[in-house]
């Protein structure tokens, strides 16, 4: 049921006008405050009868993706001098310069039965050049949102030089019911939480916690109480079929994550009240104990190269972050700021670790270098909320987490923030949502 977009193929490179490979239009993302780059996106041209509505939808989603980064500002069409009616005609750069559009995105959409073709071109208005080649994407009409994200990804990547991330999905826990008896279900959505993209993968009858994507996005690990005690399940995203992971023997297992090659699981196992980190090989069923201490060891996360694991432990007396080799052994503490640290997650770029921090009664999401230096806080919940559970966008540029408002009527919502700390946004999914896990860029 999730294979809607099967035929989506990044296809033809359109023969285009002069392609300026490295035009002067380049938005370099730094930690400083950025003046959003003004862009124009005239509604994509409908090349076949009846495709006007879908062309309008695609243009809108492309614009929303770009605006959502906080790096771009859309110039309203009411300001346009020319509407750029035809995809193939020469661009009247002067008309776009006059309204200070630095980038121009044009596109065309045609529908043939269930098939849809979306083409676009990106122009650097002030240098008067096309940026890169025009591209065409082909897929099914149902997959129009993904094609919009792919167009936006191309525009984003060409202008910023960053890796793409819009064409990705997020798995999370949808929550409902009263605070003292919450019902929780695993749900999946496009990264932007678009209502039409949300699907539920479990029914909410059993308490479920902290789903985590496999590196390829085809499977999800999560903790479930369906057997009466917390255990780890693996779920196939396409079929929504779930089955238990046979972990090492213990009273409860939780906090799972896939290894980078997807063939292993690291997790917490509690036995006799003590919680340590274990690894289970999904291929041969072999269990390996990675920590062996009377303290709490939990929330393990692999480095991108799979050689190290960052985790949370209270061996010093309070929860702090530690890094050890992938086979366990000596761990070094990396968090030394004030307060308590938890839920560390290694950036896909390898350079940073995101975490939850609790200090002086306030909750934050933060990042630090992998040696613990250069700690920075990205979010700061008010005293009446708590921030928790960061997850990285596939390009390591954005951190998503949940913010839970406290009290009887409070509940969690998903937020995202740029790794610079700018552009904090709520991602509305039409209900309480927690424990996001951001999947890979789709193929």
């Amino acid at each position, binding site marked *: 049921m999730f294979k809607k977009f099967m035929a989506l193929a990044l296809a033809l490179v359109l023969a285009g006008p002069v392609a300026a490979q490295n035009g002067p239009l380049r938005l370099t993302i730094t930690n400083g405050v950025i003046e959003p780059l003004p862009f124009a996106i005239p509604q994509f041209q409908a090349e076949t009868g009846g495709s006007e509505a879908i062309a309008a939808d695609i243009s809108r989603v492309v614009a929303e993706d770009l605006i959502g980064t906080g790096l771009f500002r859309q110039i309203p069409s009411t300001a346009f001098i020319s509407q750029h009616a035809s995809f193939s005609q020469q661009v009247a750069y002067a008309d776009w310069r006059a309204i200070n559009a630095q980038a121009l995105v044009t596109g065309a959409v045609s529908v043939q039965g269930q098939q849809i073709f979306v083409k676009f071109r990106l122009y650097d208005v002030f240098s008067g050049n096309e940026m890169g080649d025009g591209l065409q994407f082909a897929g099914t009409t149902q997959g129009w949102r993904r094609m919009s994200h792919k167009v936006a990804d191309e525009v984003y990547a060409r202008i910023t030089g960053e890796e793409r991330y819009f064409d990705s999905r997020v798995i999370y826990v949808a929550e409902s019911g*009263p*605070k003292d008896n919450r019902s929780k279900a695993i749900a999946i959505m496009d990264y932007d939480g678009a209502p039409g993209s949300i699907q539920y993968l479990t029914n909410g009858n059993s308490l479920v916690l902290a789903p985590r994507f496999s590196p390829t996005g085809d499977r999800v690990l999560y903790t479930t109480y369906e057997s009466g005690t917390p255990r780890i399940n693996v779920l196939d995203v396409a079929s929504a079929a779930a089955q238990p992971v046979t972990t090492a023997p213990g009273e409860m297992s*939780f906090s799972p994550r896939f290894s980078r090659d997807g063939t292993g699981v690291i997790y917490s196992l*509690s036995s006799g*009240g003590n*919680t340590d980190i274990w690894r289970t090989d999904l291929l041969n069923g072999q269990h390996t104990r990675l920590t062996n201490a009377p303290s*709490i060891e939990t929330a393990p996360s692999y480095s991108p190269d799979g050689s190290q694991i960052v985790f949370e432990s209270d061996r010093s007396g309070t929860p702090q972050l530690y890094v050890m080799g992938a086979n366990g052994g000596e761990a070094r503490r990396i968090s030394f700021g004030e307060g308590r640290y938890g839920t560390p997650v290694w950036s896909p770029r390898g350079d940073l670790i995101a975490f939850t921090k609790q200090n002086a009664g306030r909750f934050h999401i933060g990042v630090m270098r992998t040696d613990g230096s250069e700690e920075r806080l990205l979010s700061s919940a008010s005293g009446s909320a708590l921030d928790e559970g960061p997850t990285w966008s596939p390009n390591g540029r954005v951190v998503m987490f949940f913010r839970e408002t406290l*009290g009887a009527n409070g509940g969690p919502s998903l937020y995202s923030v740029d790794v610079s700390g700018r552009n904090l946004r709520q991602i509305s999914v039409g209900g309480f949502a927690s424990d996001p896990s951001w999947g890979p860029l789709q193929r």
Partner: protein
Amino acid sequence: MRSLTKAALILLALSTAACTRPDRFADNGNSVDLNAAGAGLAGSASDPSSPAYFSQTVGDRVFFLVDQSTLTAEAMQVLDGQANWLMTNIDYLALIEGHADEQGTREYNLALGARRSNAVREYLVSKGIPDARIRTISYGKERPTAVCAEESCYSVNRRAVTVISIGSIG
């Protein structure tokens, strides 16, 4: 309504659940929800062998300090009562639920709840209750009993609750 259904299920469990059941905590059908108002037909609070007496008079829960799983003197007193009750009422098994307040991450609180439930288990075992009659579970911060965002609520959420049910040691 809810407790009546539960009570009916308990009676059913009494008559049908036998020693043959391999998983002594196989489902909730034979458990007693001590948080429900009254324990219905299973016995009134004045009957010392009733679950209602256990929860209301003996006390089904103990509380912990922030981040702690050490039993306080007050907690030990409650657990002494639980141990005595379980010694007398040998048809009952105990499921100990460990809980935490919401001031901590989900993962840490699950582990902390496991510590707390185990602290209770070890104490009951030290008082002579066979380990096989006790099972533990942690809910972390998933099931608060009080929902305000103040210490008055947090202090009752940091708890271990002994849930008793009729059953046999597999």
